[in-house]
């Protein structure tokens, strides 16, 4: 059985959305920052179990610190969402609760993964304090740079979506 699922990746600018997708799709990483304008769409076929494949259509959105301003048309018909923040920059998670509320309002009942990226920049103990202090809970703490938990993140979401279908 083959199905395709649209996943929108969103969050503040510079948090590593493009890098996460690049790591997942081509297993590469670049230190250069090139702003994403509008949306870049890529596709990856993943095998979530033996003989069970799913095409993930990944929508890499332009980052913004005003989640409210995200164009609704991008979210149309999406099956899943990944909200990314940057663990090394408080401004990207200071209003996480509120940001998530806005997203959930726009696309209710769509599976959503909350991801703290750039985990390589902060040491583990410090990271835990940061998260606790801000009462954040992330589904994954990833590093697009080292690849840590990047595959796990997308596979988990894919499995969730197919299970939903």
């Amino acid at each position: 059985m083959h199905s395709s699922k649209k996943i929108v990746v969103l969050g503040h600018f510079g948090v590593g959305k493009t890098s996460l997708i690049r790591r997942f799709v081509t297993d590469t990483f670049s230190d250069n920052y090139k702003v994403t304008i509008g949306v870049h769409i890529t596709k990856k076929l993943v095998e979530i179990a033996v003989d069970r494949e799913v095409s993930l259509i990944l929508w890499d959105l332009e980052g913004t610190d005003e989640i409210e301003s995200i164009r609704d048309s991008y979210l149309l018909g999406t099956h899943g969402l990944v909200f990314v923040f940057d663990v090394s920059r408080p401004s990207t998670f200071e209003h996480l609760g509120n940001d998530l509320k806005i997203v959930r309002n726009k696309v209710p009942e769509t599976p959503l993964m909350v991801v703290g990226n750039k985990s390589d920049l902060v040491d583990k103990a410090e990271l835990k304090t940061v998260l606790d202090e801000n009462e954040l809970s992330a589904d994954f703490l990833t590093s697009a740079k080292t690849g840590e938990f990047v595959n796990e993140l997308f596979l988990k979401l894919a499995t969730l979506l197919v299970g939903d279908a």
Partner: protein
Amino acid sequence: MLKLYQEEFANKNMQFILLDSEGVVIESDQKLFDIPVDSSILKLHPFFESLPALFDSAEEVFDFFCIHLALKENTFTTDIKLLKKRDEFLLIITDLTEHYDSYQSVTQSRNESVIKTELTVLKNLELQERERFKNRFIQNFSHELRNPLTSIMAIIDILGDTKMTTEQTKMLDFLKESNSNLRLMLEDTLSIGMIDAGKLEIQHKLFNLRKFFELMQFTYSAKTKKKGLKFVSFWDDRIPEFIEGDRLRLFQIVANLLDNAIKYSENGTVSFKIGLNQKRANTANLRFEVIDTGIGIPEESQEAIFESFHREQPTQKGKGTGLGLTIVKRLLKLMNSKIQLNSEQNKGSVFYFDMSFKYPLPSESKWSEHGNKKRANIGRKARKKYKVLLVEDDEYVQLTLFKILLNTDSFQIDLAYDGALVLQEVVNGDYDIILMDVDLPNLTGIQITQLIRDFPFKNIKNIPIIGITANAYQENLDKCMAAGMNDVVIKPYEKEKLLNTILKNLR
């Protein structure tokens, strides 16, 4: 005609594609890219894979902005419109690559600068936090070190008064020097901590600058000689002898500069000069200068040497915390001056600073000298022997106290070691002062003091009493004072401190 022009220009960047409900191309004007009729648009780019989900929607118009289409032949940034036309769908793709590219570069620089600012602020916060932590740590740590160091100093003093072989004396001298170096470093460290915490205040008191200069001359000609260096000093006779300033801090600054000069010179000369820049009605601007012929400081390090824990030569076996010049810099800043440096590698360095001082008119300074003489007289008066009653049960402490007091040749000492005997002694003895062990076994020093203070005869009840205790807790000290002691000396004490306390309280 206009319509023709319109078509010519408006349509240039647009492609119209008609699709069936499966996404198969029915018709396309191929303005931007070629897509064969009868092929599925879903295969063209993953963007189009999301369209079928919309075909069933109740809405009739969908607008997508700024969609990046990377196709085989070309890459576009487009706006895409989807319109429902009965059971067919019309796609209008507008190529806005140029427009969005300019937007890209604006956003790029904006985002980059926002991120950079945020990271800089974070970094600064972190640095500040570290600096605070470091200062707190240094302050607490050096404070804690003071007590054991004082004990060591006292024991060294006591040891020095015992009979020793020449070899032992030598070792003790070494121990003494190491310990006093350690203590200096500790004081330096504490000063830095206090400056950083804003707790250090500059005092302005009248002092004899000429004497200060002579002390430096004396101390440093000895120190330089020890290392085989020459010492040269200069004093401008127009400088007022008495000035108003912080003698202790000035000493700390000049001593650090001179120590530094000696440390980094293997041969040659170290000079110390105090010169006059300018003299007004009652202020004098002076230049303090320390010159060496040592290794010098390369231009690129001339800033860094004033930072904490910097060492010009890390392998140098010289002693010190590496804090000396930092202290100089910060103290001078507190005193509204600034350290200046001229240096050439392998030639030597000149450190100097200018500072203004108020100085009293001649009549005032005479008065000060007079004051000094008066103090000297007290010293002479001290030549008469004072009668001391020592109340102490520990033989060892008795012995060391005896030695300290007898060495001055100013005291005659009686001993009592039992509380009950003390009162008798006091009544008969006509003592000038009582040294009282606070922690006596039967009657404590505090109780004895209370008894003495309750005596009906003035000459007895007013005898100065100095408590001696190992218990440095404020609570204990308060009790001693409340019982009527004039002062309390904490064990282990330095000889000087003890003698000073005694002299201060003699009646």
